[in-house]
């Protein structure tokens, strides 16, 4: 079950009023499929909002802010305690029942499991009195910024279930990509820990992920004819060529493997096996490929990097093949 709830508050047909709802929608679109995060929409605060939060460990509320000194399109982060002081959020309270602080106090007194941490993102709004589906320009421009800020918060809160762009940025493999590209990669990523001997995939398997090693060593293996065997004789006797798995290459921390996931026909060219206990980040290839279609620069840069991986594999294979020549 998800541990963190993101709630977009407001009315999406009231010009800027629904900016929170739109930010939440942008966050939902960017979230990795496996993130333990739910995204919801609400138009009223107070008791109803408190009731929505029941059962979550953490919550992020996104709402329109109006008030003196709040610039349209500004994005600010508040704790629920700071919000109680400020009262600028448009929807955390309900005119019909109670403000959020009172509602939360009530819920806690009732023993309801409410989030220990509640963070509010407020986006300065300009027009909350005219019906309309278009936001004013400054507020519309704030949506991606606010969504990024909320995602950052989620990377912090959901460390373990989500990969932060900061983590990826440390690896040279991703050098040269823009921050948005790194965010897209992070949102398609999932961390895995495996024991020694674990096969990520075997030669010929269909591949939908590629991997970045964080810890440990991964062997890239190919089935090669067993050099200790007289093949002509063995074939005559058994009708089969004796093969054995040969580690042709290793992927250590920072190295990428599973490139076949990004290239049709998406069949593994080699097997990959943990040679020691390992931690890796797995990336969702179909999701990334559709983003490459949309953003060709992103696709070009990534394919360049993948081509480098293939070049290294070719080099390794060439070295391995010397073993046959020398025989």
């Amino acid at each position: 079950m998800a541990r963190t709830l993101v709630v977009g508050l407001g009315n999406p047909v009231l010009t800027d009023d629904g900016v929170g709802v739109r930010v939440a929608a942008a966050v939902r679109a960017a979230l990795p499929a496996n993130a333990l995060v739910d995204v919801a929409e609400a138009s009223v605060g107070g008791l109803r909002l408190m009731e929505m939060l029941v059962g979550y460990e953490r919550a992020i509320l996104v709402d329109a802010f109006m008030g003196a000194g709040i610039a349209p399109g500004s994005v600010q982060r508040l704790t629920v305690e700071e919000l109680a002081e400020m009262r600028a959020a448009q929807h955390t309270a309900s005119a019909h029942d109670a403000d959020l602080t009172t509602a939360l106090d009530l819920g806690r007194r009732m023993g309801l499991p409410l989030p220990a941490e509640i963070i509010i993102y407020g986006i300065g709004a300009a027009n909350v009195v005219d019906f309309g589906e278009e936001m004013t320009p400054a507020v519309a421009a704030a949506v991606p910024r606010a969504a990024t800020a909320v995602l950052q918060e989620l990377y912090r809160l959901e460390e373990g279930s989500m990969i932060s762009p900061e983590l990826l940025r440390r690896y040279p493999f991703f050098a040269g990509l823009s921050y948005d590209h790194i965010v897209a990669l992070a949102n398609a990523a999932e961390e895995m820990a495996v024991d020694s001997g674990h096969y990520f995939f075997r030669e010929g398997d269909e591949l939908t992920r590629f991997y970045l090693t964080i810890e440990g060593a991964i062997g890239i293996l190919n089935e090669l004819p067993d050099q200790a065997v007289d093949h002509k004789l063995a074939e005559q006797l058994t009708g089969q060529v004796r093969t054995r798995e040969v580690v042709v290459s290793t992927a250590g921390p920072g190295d990428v493997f599973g490139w076949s996931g990004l290239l049709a026909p998406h069949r593994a060219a080699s097997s990959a096996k943990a040679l020691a206990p390992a931690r890796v980040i797995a990336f969702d290839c179909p999701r990334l490929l559709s983003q490459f279609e949309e953003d060709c620069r992103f696709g070009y840069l990534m394919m360049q990097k993948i081509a480098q991986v293939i070049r290294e594999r070719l080099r390794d294979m060439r070295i391995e093949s010397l073993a046959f020549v020398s025989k």
Partner: protein
Amino acid sequence: MKRVTIDPITRLEGHGKIEIFLDDSGAVANAYLQIPELRGFERFCVGRPAEEMPRITNRICGVCPEAHHMAATKALDALFHVEPPSVTKKLRELFYSAFYVTDHTTHFYALGGPDFVLGPDAPPAQRNILGVVHKVGLEIGAQVIDARRRNHHVIQMLGGRGVHPVAGLPGGWSKAITAEERAEIEAIARQNVDFALFSLKLFEDVVLSNQAYVDLILSEGYTHRMYSMGTVDANNRVNFYDGMIRVVDPEGKEFVKYHPRDYAQHIAERVEPWSYLKFPYLRNVGWKGLVDGKDSGLYSATPLSRLNAADGMATPKAQEFYEKLYTTLGSRKVNGRFQPVHHQLATHWARLIELCFAAERMLELALDPEITDPNVRAPITEKPTEGVGSVEAPRGTLTHHYVTDENGILTKVNLVVGTTNNYAPIALSIKKAAQTVIQAGQAISEGMLNRIEMAFRSYDPCMSCATHALPGQMPLEVVIYDAAGQVVQQISRT
């Protein structure tokens, strides 16, 4: 002239505001309600297919999307000239009853009740649902939360979505219920009836057994002799979902009973130079200003007005309490019906009686053998033209009126929302309460302010519908200016 401003939001500009003008002696000369209205809803809707309205209009307001959804759905029935099957009407009313239980429960325990449970002079920080829990016990909080939870579950089950229902269709309802769902709703309805009776008992124990509160309710400052409006069934009993609109005069004589589609013949709107609100009034009585009495066209549409406009309640327990309200508050029966009660604070009691009716009606419907009938849609065969749909929203009669071209594209949209009906009564109530509470030359205290706000709060005004969401506790700021515009006294609470 001095000016006192009660601003429900201290740090939000351009929202609701109560302004009280003092004369040179310091007595109240006038009091006004100022609320900026949302703009452009009609323009937003025109050009869209009419069948989108049940989903668009429930976006107008986060507090009672169910009421807008229902009024819009009924307007579509009329627009497409289609009569929904009997089971469909029952499912809609079942859904609507569950909504009423949550809404009235919330108002009483979170907004209206604290004034009585804790007293009108209690510090504002205590005058909320937490204060009620503190004083009456944790059990009460659990009851309120549980009532909300189980009825939201029913609303979601029947309406298709938790917050913004989607089930309403012209001539139909998008899903039937199974035998298992029916049994679950029946169990919930039984709990609701118990909860309503518990709430009425609490009201008796806390309010009616305290003579000071009864005196407050009966006091002249909270008494306005206006016309009362409400929807009644074929037997002139209160109904929330369907019926004729009945208006009784201040003495309790039926003034008019009309079909909701004829609203424009009976209701006119007045624009006053000091406000941008439009004040509805009875066209055939006429506008006499913000005054009560039989000659003034002001009417109210509140729980108490609905009880006044009807001859009784359609369920047994609610009827019992209905009679108790009228006899307790000194009403006599004339020509077989009770004379209206005009004590505005009795609205809280009326709201609980309506809560009881909603719970009992929900149980009746859950026990109706027809309720699981799967045939929930009638075919549409006619071209759309024009349609009016009306329900009793918790805060007053709600009317949706649509006109389309022959392709069903909206060309005209008019809404009269619940709170709008009560703009003039609210303004009148505030003025009268202020005149009673604020005496010439006297400093204005927090408790005095709350007594003015209590008049306002009894209407359960919902500004997020008429206008926009406000912070829940309606923090007040009173600024008193002298004739030169200097602040001489400032009281604020948050």
